[in-house]
């Protein structure tokens, strides 16, 4: 069970009393030089020939560099322009007191997520996620039902309601609050309709501001403490008071709070530095965001994905570092470039799922399609491929070296298309909206790619 938050009032005070620094100086004179220092000191080097390394000492170095970075830089509060600094003992206290597992959902739909180790034979949790794709009010319930009826899904995330009652759900407008509440209502309705009323739902993406998030927590809309509620890290190693208000609200109301973090490869650092930032941002999630778990979606700044060669290296080593040095529960959130009903997105999802699972991710949080930006261009089939392949890689007892070979064989099928990937089809084009069955075309693509993975050594369960 989750432990109490780590010294929450002390954290709040640090945002008011920490050392004052301009944001430009934080970036220019603290964060960037420290990233460079730790990458050099710990001698972290990317090897494109080994997208899934089996080098335990490299994972250890990445963990140590991440701890060093977090302790030397701290977290910048953009609301007060102050650095929140933590000591080594404080970090050790928080890590030592971290829980052994978390529970989500209620009743028959209750699920448990636990930390895993590298090449762990235990299955990871599965969250099926359309992430932040915009969706119409008309199709929202059907799309969420399609995700929720997937048997592998322990929990689901939900899309963004683009408009409600004729108005854009624009952040800070009254339509945001209305949209956030309707989002919760429609999501719970979908769960009830598919016979999983107690299922944990990731709420409420439409409500970006703290005010609307808090409004959507009212149980009359269907939200429960057993749902998934997220507080973002601002990239990189930053937070603001609006986010801290969310964290405080979720904590004080017993919600199942998690951290949402997305280090950006190509912004502040190269692939090595971004990997280290990924570890440091997990530690921010523990100490500042007060998360019981993390949704981790490192992103390539140009392709908006984490399925390319260097991003899979980052994902693998992040989870190897976390799994071998901590009990932090982290969900590996895939981001694919290609859209639904394409072979490319199936390859991307499959690789992301197997790399995450074998490297030690506690949860497979699959997968954004078409760069998460195109209206209703998402379906449960992408998440199914990511999770089914990840679980089957675990069941097959694959080692990192086995997965490395599969990745090297599959990557050339799409690496050259990352800058010009097919956007595929929309949910409505891929699914029968009455029966919620995927199209024959998509089922055939799914089957073909699955057969390829099977030939490469994934012993699928069915």
């Amino acid at each position, binding site marked *: 069970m989750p432990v109490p938050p780590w010294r929450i009032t002390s954290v709040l005070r640090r945002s008011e009393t920490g050392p004052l620094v301009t944001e*430009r100086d934080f*970036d*220019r004179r603290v*964060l*960037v*030089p420290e990233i*460079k220092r730790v990458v050099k000191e710990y001698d972290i080097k990317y090897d494109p020939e080994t997208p899934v390394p089996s080098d335990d000492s490299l994972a250890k170095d990445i963990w140590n560099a991440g701890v060093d970075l977090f302790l030397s830089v701290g977290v910048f509060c*953009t609301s007060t322009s102050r650095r929140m600094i933590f000591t080594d003992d404080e970090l050790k206290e928080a890590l030592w007191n971290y829980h052994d597992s978390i529970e989500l959902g209620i009743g028959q739909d209750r699920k448990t997520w636990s930390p895993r180790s590298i090449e762990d034979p235990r299955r990871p949790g599965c969250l099926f996620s359309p992430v*932040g*794709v*915009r969706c119409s009010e008309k199709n929202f319930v059907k799309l969420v039902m399609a995700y929720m009826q997937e048997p592998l899904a322990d929990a689901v995330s939900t899309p*963004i309601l*683009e408009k409600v009652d004729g108005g*854009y*759900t*624009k*952040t*800070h407008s009254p339509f*945001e609050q209305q*949209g956030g509440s309707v989002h919760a209502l429609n999501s719970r309705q979908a769960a009830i309709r598919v016979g999983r009323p107690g299922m944990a739902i990731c709420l409420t*993406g*439409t409500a*970006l*501001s703290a005010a609307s998030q808090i409004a959507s927590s009212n149980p009359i809309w269907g939200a429960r403490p057993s749902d998934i509620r997220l507080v973002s890290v*601002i*990239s*990189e190693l930053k937070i*603001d008071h*609006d*986010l801290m208000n969310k964290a405080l609200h979720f904590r004080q109301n017993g919600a199942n709070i998690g951290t949402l973090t997305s280090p*950006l490869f*190509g*912004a*502040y*650092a*190269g692939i090595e530095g971004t990997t280290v930032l990924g570890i440091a941002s997990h530690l921010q999630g523990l100490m500042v965001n007060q998360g019981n778990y993390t949704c981790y979606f490192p*992103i390539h*700044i*140009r392709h*908006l994905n984490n399925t390319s060669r260097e991003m899979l290296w980052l994902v693998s080593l992040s989870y190897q570092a976390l799994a071998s040095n901590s009990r932090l529960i982290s969900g590996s959130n895939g981001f694919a470039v290609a859209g639904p009903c394409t072979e490319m997105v199936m390859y991307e999802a499959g690789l992301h799922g197997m790399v995450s699972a074998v490297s030690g991710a506690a949860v497979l949080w699959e997968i954004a399609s078409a*760069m*998460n*930006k*195109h*209206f209703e261009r998402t379906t449960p089939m992408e998440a199914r491929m990511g999770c089914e392949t990840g679980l089957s890689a675990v069941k097959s007892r694959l080692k990192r070296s086995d997965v490395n070979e599969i990745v090297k064989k599959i990557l050339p099928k799409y690496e050259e298309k990352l800058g010009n990937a097919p956007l595929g089809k929309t949910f409505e084009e891929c699914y029968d909206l009455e029966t919620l069955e995927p199209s024959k075309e998509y089922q055939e693509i799914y089957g073909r790619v699955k057969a390829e993975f099977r030939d490469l050594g994934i012993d699928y369960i069915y």
Partner: protein
Amino acid sequence: MSIDELIITLKDAIVGLDEDLAEKTTEEIIATNFDINEIIEKGITEAARIIGEKFESMEYFLGELLIAEEIITKSLNRFIFVLPAGDRIEKKGTVVIATVYGDIHDIGKNLLSQMLKIHGFEVHDLGRDVPSIQVVNKAMETGADIIALSSLMSTTMPSQKEVIEMLTEFGNREKIKIIIGGGSTSPEWNESIEADGWGETVWDGVAMAKAIMGVE
């Protein structure tokens, strides 16, 4: 050193992020009978081009852009201080840039802001989570040529539309070009809100701004 060699040294100092060498070379150039336009064309613009390439190839990141922009600004300010009366540096255009209301994710905006400054634009960076009316007021107050708006989160995209609607209602839409970008945006969104351009990358943003102003 000849003036040509000094200009090359200044360019190399900017690209190499060598603040001391850039400062020393700037003073050496000032001691000559220099032509400011030649320095900008052969030195600073060329340095900006190379820095852009290094950013594209992921050799340089935000930290390097911040340092390069500081070096260029310092050097240009020194030249401006000693310019003979009547001489002036032509700016490439004026840009008001912001991450839209409700959105706190500003890395993409920061990268474009730095690159535009390095390339000689006058940039008014309003920061993150900026109300639409504030963007519009700043653009009208500064006589901006371009408004650049970034949005990462889906629910903040409508603020890009709102800025365009406000400019139209104020009767200034024809005077100011709007370029948009950010993780949640797309060419389809650009078309639907009738913005003047969508950029997928920071380099796209610089290229659009240059194309709008008709400059190299």
